[in-house]
């Protein structure tokens, strides 16, 4: 294993569904000689692409888990994280981006910048990941890379500049012209492995000259040397590449490459670009929080000699135990080391250190800073930080959204019951957006996640990997309760009839807030409630939030202020004040006009123009509010906000309404008040369920 940080690249490949991420990764692995045969996604040979190693992924043609893999190109070590494209698995994308130094944004030359590309781009921007773009599928009919570059500029706000131009398009797509070296590149051999470099064809020369000028103009904004050289007409390849790299690292420019991964064209120049334009770990400044010093951010150094700071970004449960994907940010992680999990404070000994290659792995002795690998036999949760003993640094926690949908599952037999608990324990540890709990009233096991497909995939995995057959209930939406008015309360809890007495009075008011879920404020003066009982009051109020009095949904967006009360020298206690707070909450809540809120999803449908009306109709029927329509030639994009409760089974409806030509993505947008009619229906249903349980 080499140890030159300048020659390490940790990259991710992100894109919209079906833009060809997995195919591209497969080709990269082939050209870097990590695999010796190419298997396509949904290929006829039935083997499936190497990165889609889960059986289910192969079947559906989608990538679910970010599989980390490693390869070498031109003396550079490249770690690739293959990320899922569906929005339901966004947490996977976010976790991957957290540990990456650079990204390849794959775009379809026909579909262009699609809705998921926008989401992925926003995520890249959030983690400031520099990226290069690859316009894939240039062999497809309707391919138009120039339009995609325009969309990158308009829709994503990138300073996208072509570094290549295509030689022919659609069925005539033959190769690319490199605007830096001003050479034409063709891809010969059965799998495009032999590069043939030739002069630019005459018919493309003037366009290439013109595009190169644009590239030099754009790059010279970031390099005075290049500007001078351009004025003198002596632009060298190195100078141009340096300027492009500088602009790419600061995300001020997005160099655009093109090709067709499926037809084995344009992948090797893209790999060159990864090594030449994307950052190495030491180019990126990473920060950790100092837990010993009020969580002050500390900049980490890539020095392998410094104390270890490593971040566990993904867990997998395999046949040999838990596999923890880890990135080392500082220091070196070696077999036999003792490291500390910052969250639990526990010391663990590093057993096996491996480098992952999709479902296979190779043992390594050490993992220096900047590297991505995996550990065996370490008990931790994803998002944990590991450090050398005596260090109190933690990587910033990741943004984890709350689940919006839940489903009751019932095991078919006793064997399934045991297996389900194993499966759930693993899935919840692996995926922070997937949660499981037991409903106290019904005794049902409830799983919740980020969308219908998200839960479906886990159910399928339970069946296949754990042999656990389950029956499922109807999916349930995560409703919430909140109040709409300010209301006062003044409640006395009194029980002084026999035995140890209880006395507490709590008075104040509650009001709606939008910024936070719950705020508690004490404006008690003069000791009306003794100071030691104020935390008990807060606890009492907090306990009421889990199940709202109206519909037993969680209560959010509420501020409680207590400003008066009274106590008894003997009979007042923590318990009495908690009980008084509960009574006060119920009293105030009833007066504060409680309402139910439901999750609203941002739904983006891409459909051929002829189905625009039909699609809008389907959204409208689902209480959807159509925000707008965007005409993109023969395709159009419809953006709408639709209650999640109405979106169950929408993919089937959309497919049949559009002859399977439309696709949609959905992500959580906001919570909004449920209309009266729907709320009444919910109340009726809840009452019936309660009756049945009783």
């Amino acid at each position: 294993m080499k140890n030159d940080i300048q020659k390490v690249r940790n990259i991710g490949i992100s894109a919209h569904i079906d833009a060809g991420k997995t195919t591209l990764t497969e080709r990269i692995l082939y050209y870097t000689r990590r695999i010796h045969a190419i298997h396509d996604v949904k290929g006829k040979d039935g083997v499936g692409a190497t990165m889609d190693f889960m059986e289910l992924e192969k079947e559906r043609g989608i990538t679910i888990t970010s599989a980390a893999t490693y390869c070498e190109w031109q003396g550079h070590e490249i770690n690739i994280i293959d990320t899922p494209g569906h929005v339901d698995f966004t947490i996977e994308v976010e976790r991957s981006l957290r540990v990456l130094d650079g990204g390849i944004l794959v775009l379809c030359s026909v579909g262009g910048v699609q809705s998921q590309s926008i989401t992925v781009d926003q995520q890249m921007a959030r983690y400031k990941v520099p990226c290069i773009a690859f316009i894939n599928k240039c062999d497809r009919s309707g391919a138009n890379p120039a339009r995609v570059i325009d969309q990158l500029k308009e829709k994503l706000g990138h300073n996208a500049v072509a570094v290549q131009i295509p030689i022919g398009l659609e069925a005539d797509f033959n190769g690319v012209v490199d605007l830096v070296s001003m050479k034409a590149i063709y891809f010969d051999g059965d799998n495009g492995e032999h590069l043939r470099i030739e002069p630019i064809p005459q018919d493309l020369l003037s366009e290439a000259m013109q595009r190169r000028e644009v590239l030099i103009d754009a790059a010279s904004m970031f390099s005075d040397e290049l500007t001078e050289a351009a004025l003198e007409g002596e632009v060298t390849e190195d100078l141009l590449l340096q300027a492009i790299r500088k602009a790419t690292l600061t995300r001020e420019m997005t160099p655009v490459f093109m090709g067709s991964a499926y037809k084995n064209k344009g992948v090797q120049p893209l790999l060159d670009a990864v090594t030449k334009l994307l950052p190495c770990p030491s180019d990126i400044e990473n920060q950790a929080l100092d837990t010993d010093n009020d969580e002050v951010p500390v900049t980490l150094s890539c020095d392998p000699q410094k104390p270890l700071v490593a971040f566990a970004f993904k867990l997998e449960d395999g046949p040999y135990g838990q596999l923890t994907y880890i990135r080392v940010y500082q220091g070196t992680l070696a077999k036999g080391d003792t490291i500390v999990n910052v969250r639990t404070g526990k010391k663990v000994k590093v057993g096996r250190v491996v480098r992952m290659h999709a479902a296979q792995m190779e043992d390594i002795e050490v993992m220096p800073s900047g590297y991505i690998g995996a550990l065996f036999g370490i008990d931790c949760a994803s998002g944990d930080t590991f450090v050398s003993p005596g260090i109190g640094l933690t990587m910033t926690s990741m943004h984890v959204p709350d689940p919006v949908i839940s489903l009751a599952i019932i095991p078919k037999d006793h064997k399934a019951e045991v297996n389900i608990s194993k499966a759930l324990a693993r899935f919840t540890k692996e995926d922070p957006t997937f949660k499981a709990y037991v409903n106290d009233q019904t005794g049902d096991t409830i799983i919740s996640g980020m969308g219908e497909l998200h839960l479906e995939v886990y159910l399928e995995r339970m069946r296949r990997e754990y042999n656990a057959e389950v029956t499922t209930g109807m999916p349930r939406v995560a409703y919430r309760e909140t109040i709409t008015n300010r209301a006062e309360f003044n409640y006395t809890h009194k029980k002084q009839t026999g035995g140890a007495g209880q006395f507490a009075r709590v008075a104040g008011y509650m009001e709606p807030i939008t910024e936070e879920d719950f705020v508690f404020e004490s404006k008690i003066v003069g000791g009306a409630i003794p100071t030691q009982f104020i935390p008990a009051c807060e606890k009492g109020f907090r306990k009421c939030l889990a199940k709202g009095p109206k519909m037993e949904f969680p209560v959010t967006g509420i501020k409680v202020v207590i400003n008066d009360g009274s106590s008894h020298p003997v009979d007042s206690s923590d318990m009495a004040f908690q009980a008084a707070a509960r009574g006060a909450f119920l009293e105030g809540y009833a007066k504060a006009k409680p309402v139910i809120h439901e999750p609203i999803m941002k739904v983006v449908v891409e459909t051929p123009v002829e189905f625009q009306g039909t699609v809008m109709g389907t959204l409208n029927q689902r209480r959807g509010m159509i925000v707008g329509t965007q005409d993109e030639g023969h395709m159009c994009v419809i953006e709408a906000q639709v209650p999640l409760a109405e979106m169950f089974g929408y993919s089937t409806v959309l497919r049949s309404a559009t002859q399977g030509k439309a696709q949609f993505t959905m992500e959580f947008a906001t919570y909004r008040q449920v209309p009266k009619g729907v709320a009444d229906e919910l109340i009726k249903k809840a009452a019936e369920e309660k009756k049945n349980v009783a």
Partner: protein
Amino acid sequence: MARIERFEDTDESGTRHKAHISAQAPLRVKPSRHNLAPNSELETRGPKPDPARVIYLKKRNFNMFKKDLILRNPLRLMGHETEDILPKGGFGAVLARAGVGKTAFLVQLAFNSLLRNKNVLHISLDDPVKKVCLWYEEVFRNIAHQYNVKQTDQLWEAILPYRFIMTFKVEGFSVPKLEERLTDLTEQGIFLPHMILIDGLPFDETVRKPLSDLKTLAINHSMHVWFAVRIHRHERPGPDGMPAPLLQVADLFEVAIQLQPVGKEIHVRGLKGGTAPSDHPALLLDPSTMLIKDKG
């Protein structure tokens, strides 16, 4: 074709009611120079007041703010009594050079209709839906800031269902295409616009034909249309001061308003329709927020 009542408002009790201002009980609003405006539609329309109705403080503030915004709309401030200065099928133009604030002005006109619960179809040529949404958010934020309103979420949520954005590529836009889209919307009862805003239509020598077709469409659908018209520095205006892009098609327009940067200010000048064209700027726009600053 069924008449469309696309949206319903929901009050604190969760009761849905048709959210026409006129359908709500009149509010006990503190008299001010705004709400005492003569011929105000707000005061003349609507059912008899219900004396027993309780007006919650929050709702009162909300409605006062809404009313205030309606009364402070740019057209009213220019001397037009209501926003309906355009007849059915009428055309209005907001003319300015690039970057002076045509879109922001159009969006303010849109807000005026949205606040009156009238459907607005915003057509943008070239800008994506997201960017148009950002315009609305930005102008709304500025308005809320100017009026020092804290809780604007409720109002924002209430007006959103009245807005529909359509974007086209300039070269992909045509009146028959628009008509087709409108039919999609109206036939299914999804959206029936009262007002259309068209931003980005090139006013070149070929514009007369699409404008005439649009006029017919607008008359048929009982809508009025506002256009953002870009004027260029090098084009000479007509003898009556009418900017060049409108010279050949001025007869199709009932109202024309020009935004003119003068020093650090932007003057809003009525060119045609409403009150007589005046040499003195009627209003000033604040260049930082693009909102009406003060009466001239």
